[in-house]
């Protein structure tokens, strides 16, 4: 793997390897001294054309804990304000000698362009592009699912037999696209729940089930008993384009509240990629319940991103180093 552009870039073995390395990275984060020397001398650029403080900080922490040099490059999206073009920015980063470029962009496919147009040589990591994908979010979600549903010591395991519902604005969600692909690769069953207006035309070809009936899905009537439910952020402004009539009706039909929480099996967890719209797609009771992994997802994000940076940059350093997991064992005793 040269780049991480889509969750589809990972096969089962590759995805499990990321989760295993992330588990080792997470273990180091319990220590007093969190910093590892692994990527000393390497340069990681956080290239953010779209504001996302939480994702940028997560990648920044991941790179710094691996001792990489981090450059934060916040650019104005060219499609919005006609600032510096993606190409010119890329050429600048190439001149700086970036080993990895973490890119966040409002245009779907912008990381693909960076990786394939011949502008730069470094590894490209998609940190969320438009309404396309957000593969590290899916990896941290899978990591969280595996921890809770398979166990702390789940090395080598996938998510076979688990059933996950993803609820909300699938049409505009890069988190949903990456999760459907990755969770399917890891053997989980996925059911998407949304009003028909917020499911893309063509969703029938995705490796998942779909439903318009949240209560039925939560009660296990549609896809069997759930092991997890993931609520997607919904922008209230979508109602202005007639995707749904009102915030209140959306919340009534597709919001996770205390009543719906009780429909879930006792072991099932509640996830949200953040930032949440409390009161719209998720009520305070659901967000703050003991089933909620929302805060834990944030810390898992750092471990998963450490794993991705490590695997991409150690693979790029040449074949002499052997299987990446072996190195991970050495540096993460």
């Amino acid at each position, binding site marked *: 793997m040269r780049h991480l552009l889509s969750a589809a870039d990972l096969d089962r073995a590759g995805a499990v390897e990321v989760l295993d390395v992330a588990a080792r990275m997470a273990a180091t984060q319990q220590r007093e001294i969190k910093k590892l020397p692994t990527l000393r001398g390497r340069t990681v650029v956080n290239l953010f054309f779209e504001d996302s403080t939480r994702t940028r900080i997560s990648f920044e922490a991941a790179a710094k804990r691996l001792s990489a040099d981090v450059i934060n490059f916040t650019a104005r999206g060219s499609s919005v304000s006609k600032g510096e073009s993606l190409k010119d920015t890329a050429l600048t980063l190439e001149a700086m000698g970036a080993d990895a470029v973490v890119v966040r962009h409002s245009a779907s496919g912008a990381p693909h362009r960076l990786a*394939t147009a011949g502008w730069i040589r470094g590894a490209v990591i998609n940190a969320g592009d438009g309404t396309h994908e957000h593969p590290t979010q899916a990896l941290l979600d899978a990591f969280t699912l595996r921890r809770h549903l398979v166990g702390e010591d789940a090395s080598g395991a996938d998510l076979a037999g688990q059933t996950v519902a993803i609820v909300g604005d699938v049409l505009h969600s890069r988190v949903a696209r990456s999760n459907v692909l990755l969770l399917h690769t890891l053997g989980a069953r996925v059911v998407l729940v949304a009003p028909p207006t917020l499911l893309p035309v063509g969703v029938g070809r995705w490796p998942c089930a779909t439903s318009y009936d949240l209560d039925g899905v939560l009660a296990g009537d549609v896809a069997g008993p759930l092991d997890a439910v993931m609520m997607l952020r919904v922008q209230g402004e979508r109602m202005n384009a007639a995707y749904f009539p009102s915030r209140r009706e959306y919340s009534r039909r597709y919001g996770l509240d205390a009543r719906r929480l009780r429909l879930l099996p006792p072991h099932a967890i509640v996830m949200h990629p953040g930032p949440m719209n409390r009161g719209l797609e998720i009520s305070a009771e659901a967000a703050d319940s003991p089933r909620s992994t929302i805060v834990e997802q944030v810390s898992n994000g750092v471990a998963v991103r450490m794993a991705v940076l490590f695997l991409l940059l150690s693979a790029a350093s040449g074949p002499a180093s052997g299987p990446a997991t072996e190195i991970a064992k050495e540096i993460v005793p």
Partner: protein
Amino acid sequence: MTAPGHHLLRGVRPLGGDPTDLLLRDGLIVEAGRGLAAAGARVIDGDGLVALPGLVDLHTHLREPGREDAETVETGTRAAALGGFTAVHAMANTEPVADTAGVVEQVWRLGREAGWTDVRPVGAVTVGLRGERLAELGTMADGAAAVRVFSDDGRCVGDPVLMRRALEYVKAFDGVIAQHPQDPRLTDGAQMHEGDVSAVLGLAGWPAVAEESIIARDVLLAEHVRSRLHLCHVSTAGSVEIIRWAKGRGIAVTAEVTPHHLLLTDEEVRSYDPVFKVNPPLRTADDVRALREALADGTIDVVATDHAPHAGEDKDCEWADAAEGMTGLETALSVVQATMLDTGLLDWAGIACRLSAAPARIGRVTGQGRPLAVGEPANVVLIDPAARRRVDPSAMATTGRNTPYRGRELPGAVVATFYRGHPTVCDGALATRREES
């Protein structure tokens, strides 16, 4: 000694038929038959070459005035000549818009000065392409450019009342409205064909229904007011069904398809390479099949290039930011050969009809799209159908480098183009412009 302007095409196969000789003199085909005497004419060895009437493009963006960094009348018509064209229709979406007699006559004059092909300006239907009020269609028709095709191409004439009036009004001078069928509301922010691929790529969809609903409306309007309607760049199987139905009812509708919609599908967009961004978007394999069949059975009348050159920076960016359009003049005939001839759907006579006779008839272009017969204008293209070439954008005459066929091997090559008896292309390379006599 050879007389200038006299050419003997030796052993060419008109419309792919039996070899014969054609003698061109003073802009006309003056003799046809085997074993013609050269009589001072320059002899062109046509062994193995197919002769077609010079191609006529109903849909070309020459970008002048306004975007001379992307194309000029000079560079665009050079590209046209290399592609075997002897006439092109220059679309109206220039800066300023070709919505007055002054602008259309400027383009027409630039075409005459360039001397590579006829340049037939298309007039805008509405002032500034804004879709609010009619441009002075009659004045453009009556002027030196004698405009017959009117189009807001790039934008749809969305207002049904305005469309109705335009269809009616141009009947007075035998004009035709060429509609760019795209419901603007259904395609707000659209980036690619809406379907399986857009769902995966997270690009906003351009649904087939946005084209089909306008086509359905406009064929009914054309029937109601008994006017001619031309449909630009038809791209979906559903559109084909509606046009077939309309023609069955005797509605005076004609339609074009682009070469790229005959060959490429939305699968190309998986690369996110903006060279594949075009409007209407690349569709599915089922649509491609339906378009080929419709072109073969005459439901679709013509192939038009929708040649749309863009400056490099308008394509060298992320998908959402990129301009829509592809170059097409220098590859059109090869793509048609690959998709229609080599598949057995059309013979050369059928190709001559779709790329020359029919577009000339729709555009009311005199002296173009005529049979290869004695007494007819000497607009002739010679093709080597056995040639194969790898597409190299940097070797093209168009200023635009945005060909979707970069690196692809295509069949067939234009060997020579005669524009009113004057060779604009010789041995596959650009020769000289035709000077006004």
